[in-house]
Each structure stands twice: as structure tokens, then as C-alpha cells.
């Protein structure tokens, strides 16, 4: 029972992270404005990503969710979609014991 509550809490956290990241992408990349953006969409294919934007996104994720993304998490796989980013946030939060 308790485990289930914890699992649900984690789901809520990831869903919340996904919503925030989606909002950030929409606000900062023209390619994501006024179009459907599903959590599974490959954001690298949909909009051109510069390393500058990747850095901004990284800063946004770190400051919004109060995490530090280690070097070996900075891979295309973790940044390719809203869902993947949110999952990464959840994982880093969990490993920080929250």
C-alpha cells in the first residue's frame, strides 16, 4: 500500500515535470509554438537544437527541479523527448532520495 502511494507520487512528479518542460519548449522555440507537441515526439527532429539551446534547457531543468545532471546523463537519449527528459528528472530526484 505504502509502496503504491510512493509510486503514484513519483508518477505525479514526472507528469508535472513533463508539463513544465513542454511549456518551456513552447515558449522558447518557434518550432514548438502553435503545434501539437506530444511527450513522445522527438524534439531534436522537430526543431533545430543548438548547443546553446541545449545548455539553456539544461539550466532550466536543473534550476526548476533542483537537480544536478551528471555528465553521463547528458546524452541524446535523455534529451530526445519531453517524456525522456521528465523521466530523467524523476530518476535523478529518486536517486537524490526525494
Amino acid at each position, binding site marked *: 500500500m505504502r509502496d503504491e502511494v510512493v509510486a503514484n507520487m513519483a508518477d505525479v512528479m514526472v507528469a508535472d515535470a513533463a508539463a513544465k518542460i513542454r511549456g518551456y519548449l513552447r*515558449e*522558447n*522555440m*518557434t*518550432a514548438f*509554438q502553435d503545434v501539437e507537441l506530444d511527450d513522445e515526439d522527438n524534439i*531534436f527532429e522537430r*526543431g*533545430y*537544437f*543548438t*548547443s*546553446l*539551446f*541545449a*545548455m539553456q534547457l*539544461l539550466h532550466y531543468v536543473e534550476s526548476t527541479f533542483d537537480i544536478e545532471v551528471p*555528465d553521463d546523463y*547528458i*546524452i*541524446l537519449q535523455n*534529451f530526445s523527448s519531453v517524456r525522456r527528459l521528465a523521466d530523467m528528472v524523476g530518476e535523478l530526484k529518486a536517486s537524490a532520495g526525494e
Partner: protein
Amino acid sequence: MKMAKCVVWDLDDTLWHGTLSAGDDLVLRDGVVNVIKTLDARGILQSVASKNNHDDALRKLEEVGLAEYFLYPQINWNSKSSSVAAIREKLNIGIDTIMFVDDQPFERDEVAFVHPDVETIDSADLGGMLSMPRLSPTVVTEDAARRRQMYLEDQARNEAELAHQGASDEFLGGLDMIFTISRAKGGDLLRLAELTERTNQLNSTGIQYSHQQLEELMHSPDHDLWVCELTDRYGSYGKIGVALVEKQDDRWTVNLLLMSCRTVSKGVGTVLLSFLLNRAAENGKRFFARFRRTDRNRQMLVTYQLANFRVVWREGNDYLYENDLAVRPEYPGYIKVKIDA
């Protein structure tokens, strides 16, 4: 000690005799104009940290013909350390490359207390400044002599960017950027050596190369030495990037990739890398890149790892990446790329 990139000046009793807010008759100190103009010609940036009424002080600086020499002058009633921090952020340079000149020991100590890496100068030592080693670069490149001009152009861009409402990539689209990639020529080498010395954030290894080493590499049949230049509608950023590729049989290895920190906000960091990637793919080569993690170059790590480079070897902070060339990157739409191979 690192060469200084910026000298921050106090005004009252440092630049001129007298106190502006006390209504004194202000007279420029002997030799100060020569020091400012000479530092400027050496490619050293200058700014102001002064406790004064902003508009009055700026008017005075214009009156004496010195206003144009100072980038992002901080004239306010805040601590000098916070003014120095603001200048550092605007110029996007390391705090350890700033020197601060003030006549008051209190102000020098306050800055040194908050920023131990900032070297302070007593304004009584004005006469000796031009012979200080940190202010005396051995060579002054063409790009260095234009440095202040380039920052002023940057200031104009930044103001336009602040006024622009909307996505940042949309703003970049309006800059009409042209990115030219060419093989390094003899005349580029001093600037390239300087770039390897001055660039920290977007630098794949942090290894410095001398003019002589670069000259050998330029002539080496086993290496390609690329240089890039960026212009936009506000002017030229000059030579802002370098790539050194070592060619061995079926493998090409990027031994050095760097982009000047002045272009970080322009989203051009991946252009040179995309060019190299496409070229390796066209030539049927395997493509590797060396990387040395420093405490400053996280953005370079992000650039590589999000461009599909995977770590194939690692020892401590030294990495070797490989890109399988499965994805051929395109250049961003807002930038025109010219290749002069």
C-alpha cells in the same frame, strides 16, 4: 597569472582629480588618457566601477572624450565588488582576467575580499600600468585591436535582443549571420594561438598551441586546420573558431575544437562540428574527437554528447568520442554557411 582581459576603473581621484558629486573642478590625471588608449590598442577591454550619479558621470566621461572606451560602465551606489561582478557577466570573461584600479584602499580590499582572483591596482601606480606583464600581450592581433569595437557591436545586438519579444531562435534569424569556414592561412595563426589561450568554455581540450606549433600543423599533410569567421548585420565577430583534425588512414580525429565565448549566445557552436561530421561521412572515414573535461567546458561536453558522440575510451578527465555518422546534421536555418575549402 593569466593575461588580463579587462581593466575596471574607478573615476573620482583615479581617472580624474576631484569628486564629481562634491561639485569639484575635475581635471584628468596626467597620463591617464595615454594609458587608456594604449590598453585599448592592446586589445584589453576597459570598464568603470564608480559610486556616482550615473547620468552625471557619463556626461563627464563624454565631455572628456573617454566614454567610448568603457564597456558596460557600472555607475551606481552599489558595492564595487557587485559592479565588477556585473561587468564580468556582461563581458562573459573569467573573473581572474579582471584588474581593478582605485585610489581607495577600502574599495580595493572590498573587491579583493569578494573576488580574491581579481588583481587590484592602486591608482597611484598609474605610471607603471603599461609595463605590467599582465597588461602587456606579446602580440596584438588584428582581432584584438578591434576587440572593443566588437563588444560595442555586441552591446547593440543585446539591446535589440532585449527589445525583441518572442523566441530566441526567431531573433537569431533576423541577424543575417554568415559563418565562413576556411583553411587556416599564415596570417590567421597569431589569432588562432590567441584563441587557444583565451577560450575556456567552448574548448574541447583546453590545450594551448603556440604560433610555431600551429604553423607546423597548418603545413602537415596529416592534419586539417580550419578557422571560422562570423559576421552579422551589426558587423564582424572576427575569427572566432578553430578545429584541428588529425587524419590517419580511415580515421579522422578532432584534436581541438573551440569557439570564442563571444559567440556562445549566437547558437553557432555546432556549425563547425556539423561541417566536420559531414565531411568525414563524405570521405568514408570513421570520426573521433578528443575531449578533456575541465571545470569550465561543460558546454563543449553538451555539444559533443548531444551531437551523438559516444565515449569509446576514457582515462580520468580525458575522453575519446566516436560518432557513428548515422545522422547527418543540417545547419540551422538562421545562419548562412560558406565553405572555402
